[in-house]
């Protein structure tokens, strides 16, 4: 047994008209590149071997018991790793909206979206990664702040356009809202003072412009 895919199957008709699948994709039918008779074809491209990047999916779902469980169970079972998941009601009484961020290549995330579509309670799924969107996240940070450092910490909160929600002897609670990277920056900035607690909502995302993903499913 060898790894040579030709060990059983010959090149079609012995004429060597085979073509590499990777070279073919996108090529117009009929312009099939010629192959040397004896050359082994390159390996078939696997789906999902592309570059990993962060994707954002918006899912509009029916507000039924267990729908969050269905979504999270599916992502686990299909081996997708969720970075964050935010769920809330929408203006329609029986419809909820999920914002899911996950890492993967384009094909894998497309597969995740298609799998989500298979759920009966899912009305619409959209990958908004390459669209123009607004993405906001809210974080509450309980920062160690003694009398000596309180001033500095308050200044940092102010400069980061955060708000102070609570002040205590040893700490303050600050709220920051903004794109995920802003929240990351703020957290990194105050880490040196000591973070006692941190909670983040995960991103909620909406596309810019007048188009509406929810209107598309309005009943």
């Amino acid at each position: 047994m060898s790894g040579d895919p030709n060990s059983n199957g010959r090149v079609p008709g012995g004429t060597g008209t085979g073509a590499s699948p990777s070279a073919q994709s996108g090529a117009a039918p009929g312009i099939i590149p010629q192959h040397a008779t004896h050359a082994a074809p390159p390996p078939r491209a696997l789906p999902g071997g592309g570059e990993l990047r962060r994707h954002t999916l918006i899912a509009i779902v029916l507000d039924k018991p267990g729908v969050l469980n269905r979504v999270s169970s599916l992502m686990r079972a299909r081996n997708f790793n969720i970075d964050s998941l935010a769920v809330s009601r929408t203006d329609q009484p029986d419809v909820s909206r999920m914002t899911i961020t996950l890492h993967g290549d384009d094909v894998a995330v497309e597969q995740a979206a298609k799998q989500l579509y298979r759920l009966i309670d899912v009305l619409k799924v959209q990958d908004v990664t390459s669209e123009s969107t607004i993405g906001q996240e809210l974080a509450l940070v309980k920062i160690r702040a003694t009398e000596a450092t309180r001033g500095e910490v308050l200044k940092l909160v102010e400069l980061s356009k955060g708000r102070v929600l609570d002040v205590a002897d040893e700490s303050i609670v600050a709220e920051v809202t903004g794109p995920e990277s802003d929240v990351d920056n703020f957290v990194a900035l105050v880490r040196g003072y000591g973070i006692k607690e941190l909670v983040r909502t995960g991103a909620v995302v909406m596309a810019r412009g007048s188009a509406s993903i929810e209107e598309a499913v309005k009943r």
Partner: protein
Amino acid sequence: MTMTKGTSAKPPSPTAPSPAARRSHVPADGTSGAAAVEAARKEMLHEARPRNRTRIGADVVCEALLRQGADVFFSYPGGVILPLYDVLGDYPELRHILVRHEQGGAHAADGYARVTGRVGVCMGTSGPGATNLVTGIGTALLDSVPIVAITGNVPSALIGKDAFQEIDINGITLPMTKHNYLVRDADDLPRVIAEAFHIARTGRPGPVHIDITKDALQQETTAEHPTDEEVVAGLPGFRPNLDANGRQLKLAAQELKNAKRPMILAGHGVLHAEAWDDLVAFAEKTQIPVAHTLLGVGVIDETHPLSYGYMGMHGWKHVNRAIQSADLLFAIGMRFDDRVTGNVRTYAPYARIVHVDIDPAEIGKNVAVEVPIVGDAGRVLRALTPMVDAVDPETRAEYFNELAAWRKESEGGSWHGSGAWREGVLSADYVVSRIGELTDHKATYVADVGQNQMWLARYTGFRDPNSHVSSGGLGTMGFSVPAAMGAALGRPDRETWAITGDGGFQMTFQELMTLVQDRIPVKIALFDNKKLGMIRQWQEIIYAGNYHSAHLLGPDYLKLAEAFGIPAFKATKPDEVDDAIRAAQAVDGPTLIWFEIAEEQNVFPMMPAGKGLSDLIEKWDGADE
């Protein structure tokens, strides 16, 4: 409320009642929730209640089953589903088969669905009854078989209390069903059951599970059954695409036109769509040979000139060879399972792929394709056939000659074809081909899992759609006998043969008694090699002959059958095979043939897991005896 781990218990607060005061054992006593829990508990303990012939939830279940055309269902009673059994007597049109184990019930519903194309129904009680159904539900999911599984659950007030026979079956079936429901209110039952049947059979079929609390089964209700339109309107998230995109069809037609070495790969989806005639019409017009998957057995009569055979891990060498050299694969209703492709990197290296499937998630999942088409196999074929030019077979002469030569070589070189089996020893492929021959290829053949499954698919000679039943995706051993039970009830006009190894048979032979009690005429061909044959084959070839647990003791199957009251026959030599089969055919009712086959026959060719279609093993030193 804050729950903290690791802190020591606090002393009782001063407001707690003194020990002298009479203590209630009911948590939160005095609240309405606690009262409901108590009432439900009493209800559980006192099953006997006066017969109440107002319409209750259990009636709704029976009415709904009849409305859906389910004339038979497979079930096992238990505490919380007893309200249903209390009313079953009032619905004589509903045939209830009392199985001996819920797994058998689920497989029977599955077998029924596969041969009829209708939705199969199985039921069980809560707890162990429900968990016993799970293997059968998983089998149906992986093979996209429409079944509805109904379980009772503890009264709704007891849910979450770890009540007797309570398990979170809804949570268990959630990832292994197309959809599932928990019903706590009888008023929801008509809608839920109608939705369940609609979901199970529409689009890509699959199992749906309905869990019904005992109080919902007992609750009086006047809720009406919804119309089909109401069901569809109530499921805004379930709108399968049945018709293909016209642009994609044009692209596919162009691919077909360009192809010099095309091959059709047909799967289970063609059977689901009942599109076997459309497939043959398409293949004849385009003059493209048809290869089929394991579950696609029966999509085309194997004697049809364009039928090329069974592909994949244990498929025919000539078929895999043709796939490896094809320049176009027209895949329809199949999902490029790893048993079909082997190593994807080396799969069909010269081929462009047109992939037709009703489930968009299947396209591009395992193999990248050039032309994706989402739609029902039948509708796609009917739309595409007029768009393609009729092909003159003469233009494919060179291709066809090569295919024919490969086929001759591969079939002639196989054990079966060469007849090289040691003289006087009973080989499984011979038995299977005799069963095919003596039943005139017109029976329903139900496979178990392992070597027997591969022998059946390879050597029976299938002519008719839905005549082959096999657990392909989940590979559930013990499937054959119970699935044949359902298949025999679904298609009483055909003989039903359950083909099983001694391993799978020993997993579920309790259903023999069901066959006897309900006089279900299943003919069991038991292939006894006193081994877990496929395990032994893998251990021989891949694990250097380290035969751990491959040897399997079995009972005297003639005595076993006698104990069940089943006429049984035995064959140990090739010349006894025909007589045994004919004797079994003459039995009116269930029967068993014990074939003592050669102990160490392998299924060849074989593609080792992880290897490619071109890496078939066809022989093994010293293996074939």
